[in-house]
């Protein structure tokens, strides 16, 4: 049963901020696809909820004047994956969120909720991490900007302090321009499943498409929180594209991740998968960028 003490519905960001102040400890409810499951399991018994679902100013995606892509946090996965700005500039994000749950969940679930939930398996998190997303966090005192890289503090824990609300996700132009991305979710089923491992990469190639100018790579479920693979990235920097490079990148991944054994999969299997899907994702991204692995 859905055991909660009270539900407060905010109509605006200002109202939401006021409510968070009045009800310290209350949980922010966006689409509800994570919180309702916990509520049903009785894990949040007696909690207070502040619904921000009605705040339309927190919905939508746009390209800002300086070329930054702004994604408002309440944008549903379906809206993300079908939005022209996403499809044109960072289609990989749409491809990633299209692999969450089923159509109903993608219609209700939000990208902001996905990252604020703080779990390592969040399908949007690795792509946002790989694109150096910046988070706009608002409180009554004002707004602070935090790199998404610093947001996850631990499993299920994120750097949102009392009275704060995620109000924007920004991907700077420098980060996305001339990049091509690819996301691979390894799961037992082709739908309605949680990733055993997820890997998002994006590449920027040299003008002649012979070298990787820049590689960005991030993983889900390869560590307690979504992680960037900096070693693998630097292995690729400025290097000519060939099979040997792909292998080096794939091997380098091991230094970046710390998967654990659980009843879902063993650490060894996840390590193997991480190398394999990293290799495949880089290869696919390079091909999308017009590069070729064998000259």
């Amino acid at each position, binding site marked *: *049963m859905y055991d909660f003490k009270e539900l407060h519905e905010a109509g605006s960001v200002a109202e939401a901020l006021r409510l968070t102040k009045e009800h310290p400890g209350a949980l922010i409810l966006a689409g509800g696809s994570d919180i309702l499951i916990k509520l049903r399991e009785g894990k949040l018994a007696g909690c207070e909820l502040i619904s921000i679902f009605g705040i339309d100013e927190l919905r939508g995606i746009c390209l800002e004047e300086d070329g930054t892509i702004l994604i408002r946090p309440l944008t549903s996965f379906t809206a993300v994956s079908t939005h022209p700005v996403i499809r044109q500039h960072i289609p990989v994000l749409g491809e990633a969120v299209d692999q969450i749950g089923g159509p109903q969940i993608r219609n209700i679930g939000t990208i902001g909720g996905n990252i604020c939930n703080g779990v390592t398996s969040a399908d949007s998190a690795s792509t946002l991490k790989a694109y150096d997303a910046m988070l706009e966090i608002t409180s009554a005192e004002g707004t602070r900007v935090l790199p998404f890289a610093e947001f996850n503090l631990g499993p299920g824990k994120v750097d949102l302090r009392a009275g704060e609300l995620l109000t924007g996700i920004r991907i700077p132009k420098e980060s996305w321009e001339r990049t091509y991305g690819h996301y691979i979710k390894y799961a037992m*089923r082709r739908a309605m499943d*949680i990733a055993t491992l997820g890997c998002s990469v994006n590449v920027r190639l040299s003008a002649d498409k012979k070298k990787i100018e820049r590689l960005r790579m991030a993983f889900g479920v390869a560590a307690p929180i979504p992680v960037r693979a900096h070693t693998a990235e630097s292995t690729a920097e400025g290097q000519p594209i060939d099979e040997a490079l792909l292998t080096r990148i794939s091997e380098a991944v091991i230094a970046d991740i710390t998967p654990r054994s659980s009843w879902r999969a063993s650490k060894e*299997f996840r390590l193997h998968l991480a190398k394999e*899907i990293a290799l495949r994702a880089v290869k696919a991204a390079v091909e999308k960028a017009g590069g070729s692995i064998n000259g």
Partner: protein
Amino acid sequence: MSEYTVIGKPALRKDSHDKVTGSAQFCADITLTGMLHGAVLRSKVPHGIIKSIDVSAAKEAEGVRAVVTGEEVPYRLGRSIMDQTFLAIDKVRHEGEPIALVAADTLEQAYAAVRMIKVDIEPLPAVNDVLEAMKPESALVHDRLEDYWHVDTIRPVNGTNIYDHFTLRKGDVDKAFAEADVIVENEYDCAILHHAAIENHLAIAKVDGSGKITVWSPAQSPYYIRGELSRALKVPENKIRVIVPPIGGGFGGKLEARAEQLAIALAMKTHGRPVKVAFSREEDFLAGTVRAGVHFKMRTAARKDGKILAVESTNWWDSGAYSTISPTVTLKANVILAGPYEVDNVKMDGYCVATNKQLGTAQRGFGVAEASYAHEQQMDAVAKALGMDPYELRMKNVMVDGCKGHTGEKMFAVGIKECLKEAAEGLGWEGHPTSWITEDGKIRGRGLGTFMKFTGTPSYTSATIKLNFDGSAVVSYSTTELGQGVGIVIPQIVAEELGIPLELISTVQVDTDHTPLDKTTTSSRATYHLGNATIKAAEDARRQICQWVAFKWKTPVERIEFKKGGIIVQLDEQGKPTGKQARMDELAKNGLIKNGEPILGYGSYETTNIWHKPDPETYQTERLTAMWFFGANAAEVEIDPDTAKIRVVKVVAAHDIGKTLNPLGCLQQVEGGVIMGIGNTLLEEFIHRDGYLMNGNMVDFKIPTSMDSDVEIEMRLIESSPHPEGPYGAKGIGEPAMCATQSAVASAVAHALGVPVVHVPIKGEHILAACRKRLEEANDR
């Protein structure tokens, strides 16, 4: 041209419209006047001693009308062993076991009150593993199993966790092994599975002033449940009524009473107000039912030329905290564990074992899919040892008419050879390798699976056909519609036998106060048993029709002929048609039976007379069953060697159907069965840690989604071995549809990788090393 007008033609299920549009009223949709809502306090630990239960706060809570604890309802349930109480009394034996109940005005109030119950349980070590459970030093789930009442066909052992030890002995196994050219020995494991029907267990119960108990429940076998409840409550059967709304899937899981006894326990205290107890999905995982896990030890002896000389097995079934009908699962699997092959020497020891896990019970196949996986892995291993083609080896050994079965009976209507031939042909087996590497570096493999299964005997059922004056007919029976299509096959038979249009024939809701006696809806028995009963009911109706028409036409009844297709003809004294006739499909127009003597045809079918009780030690008998089923699947799989992902490319399913009554219904069964079989083989398993279920939800217990079902399925229905006693020669298809998929897919994976599959489900991490090795071998060549 077919000799039938309706039989053998595709017919759309009569319940499709209601179910697709959502207008069907399932048990969950029913709200009765004054109905209360029940909630269950369940054990959080898998094994422990109940020190105290304090329900005082719950009793005082808002809206609460009744609270029940175990001591108030000390009734015992159990088809094989009466080892189960409605609620835990001194001890809890599995996570999720019901401990106390609350009925309240609203479900929210009931849940709130349940949370107020204080229960103190001293945890005991959980019996988590079936092989550990067999060790003398193991903790005991039940202290004294023999002391419970139990059926005399099983052998529980005091001071152990053994619910039953089943034995089958045929020929001289030791001698055969001594003489064998090749002996293959392996062990196999199948995980615990959940039925995961779309509808959870639930029931509504009402106890009226006279003490009569009425239960609304999606009971697969309402008369079986009625019998169970009657024995438990020591109330005569006529004081219990079971009404069955449309069922949202059973697969064997709705055979056992799960929510029924809880709703009754509450309804006995609510002064006539009905109580609904509906399990949540989580409760269904923990306290519904499961397919037992099993560990097989298999030994097979063969001669150089491929003749299988002997099969020997000891196997242990992880049947959980209470025995339910699991001993029968163990039995049914062991009887056919040598496969549909002629084997002179067979020795089986099946142990049905208690653990502190969920309750094992029947699931589509009663252990046959698991057994098929084990015997088919053995066949592949023998083929490999002998350097023979796996198909050839099987063909050489398959049973034929007249051969002696594993139970010593003379087999008849044996269609396995044709099935195997058709399945292999459908995949293009001959001349094709069983393992190869594709151009894009994937490993492909092909495999075969066969099975045989028997239907539970002795058994009985009955049907009535009521004719309305407008020419429509209502057929009543108590075999339930679980999705298997009984609700269309039986009307088809009525239409065929009486010449009444199919659309004018309806069925009625199963209700033990109204619909005729039936044993169970299990064992793929409906078409065969109820079909035979329906044919007899139609005969009875025809006799009554002829009598009435004779009276109406003022003709001696001997000169009224009821012809095929439902044409009633008047004959002259020489037996020639006079020209006067009437058609059954025009009764509304011709008014032939209007205001006449009402016509109610009755027919029954039972199989006690053909059954011979097997010897308890050897399980040898003259005839074990009314009907044997046979079938074969051939499967092709593709494995990504780097991620160890397995994709089933194609399954050819050939079934010894005897006679196809509804090809559309068969296709639905086969498609569903194959996908379910693939889920069982590649995805589904219960994962426990110390008796705690880790993955009791629909995300972590992975049944295939539609996205995972894009396998090419080819069905071949074999009609070359009609059953001499079956309706039109028909056998069953419900369970057979999935019995050989697990074995065929496992066989394909084993062939692809060149190593036996020793555990299902087959998980990526288990085969990764084998994938590597297979590729290296390919590169070496």
